[in-house]
C-alpha cells in the first residue's frame, strides 16, 4: 500500500515540475507602446513607490503578481516611476488590511474600499493613516482636478463631509456599467406559450404559473442566503429592505416601514405557497443554480451578464434560450424599477496615499496619469496594437484578448493588460463593458437592465457618511435589526410565520431603534447636501 502511495506522489510531483518548466518561459512579450507626448511624463526619478493592492485571481492565473503584468510594465515605462506591488493573500484582504493598519508599517499607496473604513474615511485621515489629498491634487494632479471641476456631483461623492478628498477614486460614470445583473427568463418557453416578455409583477405571476403548469421544476430560481441577496430579491419585485432616499419628500425612509414592502412580501409569500419559487432558495448556491439552469429546470432567475448569462447562452442544453428582460414594475407605464440593484458612480474604493509616503507629490503624479487621456486608454484597454485597436474611433480588443494564443481565458488575458476588468484608480470607460460583453445577448441585457436607471438613481441612498460619534451607533442598530429582519422576512415568505404577525414585526424593529437610525441617516444626508 505505502509503495503505491509513494509512486503516485512521485508521479504527481514529476508531472507538476515538468509543466512548470514548460510554462515559465511564456509572458515575456515586449510592449512597443508609443512614447508619451505629454511633457510631464516620463518623470525622471529613481524612487520606487510601494503599492498595496488586492491581486485578482485572473492575474495569478498566469503570473505571480501585478508587477509582472504588461499593464504595470507599460505604466512604469510611461510614467518613469517604479512600483513595488504588495499583495494580500486572496480572500484575506480585510484581515490583512487591518494588520497593515495595526502594525504601522504602511506602504506609500494603499488601494482599498476606503469608503467603508470603520468610522469613515475621515477617521482614517484623523488617525494618521492616510493624508487628505486636496493640496497634493491641486499641485500635482491636474487630470483628476480637471475631472472633479467638470463633474461636481461626482466629486462630492468622493469627499468627506468637510470636503476632504481621501482617494484617487474608482469611478464608473455610465449607467451601463452599473446594472450588470438583472432578470433572465426562458424566452423559448415564452415563445411556445405565445407570451410577451413580462413587464409587470402580474405578468410575472402569469408567466411563472405557466412555467409551473408546463412542468418546469423551478419556475423562479433565486438565492436569498444572506442580507445582500434578500435585498436584491426585494429590489426586483418592488420593495426595499433598508434605508433609501424618498425623492418626493427628499427624506430618508426605512423600506420595511413603507407599504411597498408589505405588498412585495405578501406577493412573494403567495408565490412560494403556490410552488413558484425554488424550495431551496434560502440554502442554494450559484453553482447549484447554474447546473439547474443549464439543464433547463429553471424558468426565470436573476443573474449577472458576464460569467452567467454568457455561459448559459453558450452551454445550455438544446432549445433552452435564457434571455434578459427589463426589471418588472407595478403598472404598465411606470418609469422604471425603484429599487433595482445598481452600483454607485463612485465604486467606494480607490488609491490613498499614506502618511508614510515620503514624496506624496510623486505618488499623486503617478496616480494622476491614469486620469489623463493616454493613461485612461492604458488602464481601460491596455496597449494599442497589442490588446486593442481603434476601429471607427472606438477601441476593440484584439485576438490576444478574445482568443488568447497562450490559452488564457478572456478575463485572464484582460487582467494582464488592463485594470478596467477589476478595479483601480481610474474612470472606467463604457467601452470596457461593450467589449467585455461580446455576445449580442449580453449587449441586449445591458440595454434592458439599464432601462429606467435615472428613476432608480433618484431613490438611491447617496454615499452619505455618519459622523464619528454616530458610526458605532448606526452599526449596532443595523446589526441587531438586520439579523432579526432577514430571519422574519424568510419566515413570512416560507409560511413559518403568518402574515398576521406583520405588525409585531414592525414594532420589534422600532424597539431595536430603527427610528434613531433614520434620524442619523437624515442628518448625514443633510451634511452630504452641504458638502
Amino acid at each position: 500500500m505505502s509503495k503505491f502511495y509513494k509512486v503516485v506522489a512521485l508521479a504527481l510531483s514529476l508531472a507538476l515540475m515538468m509543466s512548470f518548466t514548460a510554462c515559465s518561459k511564456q509572458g515575456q512579450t515586449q510592449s512597443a507602446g508609443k512614447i508619451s507626448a505629454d511633457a510631464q511624463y516620463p518623470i525622471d526619478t529613481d524612487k520606487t513607490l510601494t503599492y498595496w493592492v488586492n491581486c485578482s485571481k485572473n492575474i495569478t492565473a498566469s503570473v505571480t503578481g501585478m508587477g509582472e503584468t504588461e499593464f504595470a510594465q507599460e505604466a512604469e515605462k510611461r510614467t518613469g516611476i517604479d512600483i513595488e506591488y504588495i499583495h494580500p493573500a486572496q480572500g484575506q484582504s480585510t484581515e490583512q488590511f487591518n494588520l497593515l493598519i495595526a502594525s504601522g508599517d504602511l506602504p506609500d499607496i494603499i488601494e482599498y474600499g476606503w469608503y467603508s473604513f470603520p468610522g469613515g474615511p475621515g477617521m482614517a485621515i484623523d488617525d494618521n493613516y492616510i493624508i487628505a489629498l486636496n493640496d497634493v491634487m491641486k499641485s500635482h494632479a491636474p487630470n483628476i482636478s480637471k475631472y472633479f471641476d467638470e463633474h461636481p456631483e461626482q466629486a462630492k461623492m468622493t469627499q468627506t463631509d468637510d470636503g476632504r478628498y481621501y482617494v484617487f477614486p474608482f469611478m464608473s460614470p455610465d449607467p451601463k456599467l452599473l446594472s450588470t445583473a438583472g432578470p433572465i427568463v426562458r424566452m423559448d418557453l415564452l415563445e411556445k406559450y405565445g407570451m410577451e416578455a413580462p413587464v409587470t409583477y402580474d405578468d410575472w405571476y402569469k408567466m411563472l404559473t405557466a412555467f409551473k403548469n408546463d412542468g418546469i421544476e423551478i419556475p423562479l430560481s433565486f438565492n436569498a442566503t444572506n442580507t445582500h441577496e434578500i435585498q436584491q430579491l426585494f429590489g426586483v419585485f418592488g420593495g426595499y429592505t433598508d434605508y433609501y432616499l424618498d425623492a418626493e419628500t427628499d427624506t430618508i425612509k426605512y423600506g420595511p416601514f413603507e407599504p411597498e414592502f408589505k405588498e412585495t412580501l405578501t406577493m412573494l409569500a403567495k408565490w412560494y405557497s403556490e410552488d413558484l419559487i425554488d424550495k431551496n432558495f434560502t440554502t442554494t448556491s450559484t453553482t447549484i443554480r447554474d447546473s439547474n439552469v443549464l439543464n433547463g429546470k429553471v424558468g426565470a432567475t436573476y443573474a449577472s451578464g458576464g460569467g452567467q448569462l454568457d455561459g448559459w447562452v453558450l452551454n445550455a442544453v438544446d432549445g433552452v434560450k435564457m434571455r434578459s428582460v427589463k426589471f418588472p414594475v407595478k403598472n404598465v407605464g411606470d418609469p422604471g424599477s425603484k429599487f433595482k440593484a445598481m452600483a454607485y458612480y463612485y465604486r467606494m474604493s480607490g488609491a490613498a496615499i499614506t502618511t508614510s509616503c515620503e514624496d506624496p507629490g510623486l505618488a499623486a503624479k503617478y496616480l494622476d496619469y491614469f486620469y489623463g487621456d493616454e493613461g485612461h486608454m492604458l488602464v481601460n484597454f491596455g496597449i494599442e496594437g497589442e490588446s486593442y485597436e481603434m476601429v471607427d474611433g472606438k477601441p476593440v480588443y484584439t485576438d490576444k484578448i478574445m482568443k488568447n494564443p497562450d490559452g488564457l481565458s478572456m478575463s485572464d488575458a484582460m487582467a494582464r493588460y488592463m485594470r478596467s476588468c477589476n478595479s483601480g484608480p481610474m474612470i472606467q470607460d463604457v467601452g470596457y463593458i461593450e467589449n467585455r460583453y461580446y455576445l449580442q445577448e449580453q449587449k441586449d441585457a445591458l440595454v434592458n437592465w439599464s432601462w429606467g436607471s435615472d428613476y432608480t438613481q433618484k431613490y438611491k441612498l447617496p454615499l452619505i457618511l455618519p459622523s464619528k460619534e454616530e458610526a458605532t451607533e448606526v452599526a449596532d442598530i443595523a446589526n441587531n435589526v438586520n439579523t432579526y429582519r432577514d430571519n422574519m422576512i424568510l419566515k413570512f415568505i416560507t409560511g413559518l410565520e403568518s402574515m398576521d404577525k406583520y405588525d409585531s414585526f414592525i414594532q420589534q424593529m422600532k424597539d431595536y431603534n430603527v427610528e434613531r437610525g433614520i434620524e442619523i441617516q437624515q442628518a448625514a444626508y443633510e451634511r452630504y447636501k452641504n458638502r
Partner: protein
Amino acid sequence: MKIKESKSYKVFKFFNIIVLSLVAIISLYPMIYVLLASLSDPTEFMKHQGLLLKPVEFSFESYVQVSKHPFILSGYKSTLFVLIVGLAVNMLLTLPGAFALASKDFKYRALINKMVVFTMLFSGGMVPLFLTVKAYGLLDSYWALILPVAVNTFNLIIMRTAFASIPPSLAESATLDGASELVIMLKIALPLCMPTIAVIILYYGVQHWNAWFHAMLFIKTKTKYPLQLVLREVLVVEDTTSMTIGGDDTVGLAETVKYAVIIVSTLPILTLYPFLQRYFVKGVMVGAVKG
C-alpha cells in the same frame, strides 16, 4: 490460544464487518467525489447533479490549469521545509517537556501543567500575536511558521498522559541501576510510548500541512506561501470589497480546478499515515520491552 467463540459473538463479528465497511465507504466517498470531479470536463460538470460515480466526460483540463498556477511548486517547497524542520522542533520540545511534566519527581509539575492548560483557554488574539512575532524579527521568515507552533498543548497533554501511564516500577529499577532521567527517557519511556509518539507525529505533521492562518499573518513574499495558503487562494470567492464588476471565468472551470487543487495538495500528506500505522500493531512494543 483459541477459545470456542459463542454464537452471539459470531453474529456480532458479522455485523461488525458490515458496519465498518459502511463507515469506510461513507468516509471514502467525499474523496472519490473530489477526485472524479477534478477529472471531469469543466463545462459538462456544471450540468451534473447529485452523486458522482464516474467523471463527467473525462478530462485533464483542470490539472492543466492547476499546473499553470505560479505558486503551487513554491508552495510545495515551503510546506515541506516547514513540515520537516517544524516536526523536528516539535519533537525536541514536546517529548522531553512531556516527560518532565509526567514525572512525579518534578517539583514544579503542577504549576507548569496549570500554566500550560491556561493557554488553551485564554489567548491574546491575532493582532498581539502579530505584534510579538514582529518584535522578535520573524516576519516573512519560515521561522514564523515554526516557532509560534513549536508546541501544541493538546499533543503535549496526550504525550504526558502516555508517559504517565508507564508503570513506575520500570523507572525505579533503572534509577537504582544508576540511570539518569535522560537515560530513562531515551531507553525506557520513548520505546514504550512509540504508538503515542506516532500519533503526535501524525497530528503535528498534518497540522503543519494544513496550516495557512499564520502564513497569512506573517508571510509577505508570495513565493514563501505554503501550499495550503495557495490552495485557499484558489478556493475562496474573490473579495467583494473591491466591488468587481460582473462575473468572469469560463463557466464551470473554476469549480473543477478547485477539486484538482484539493487532490494535488492532499495526496502527499495521505501517504504519511500508512508509514506510521505499523506502530499501531497491537502489543508489539509492550511485549518487546517486557520480554
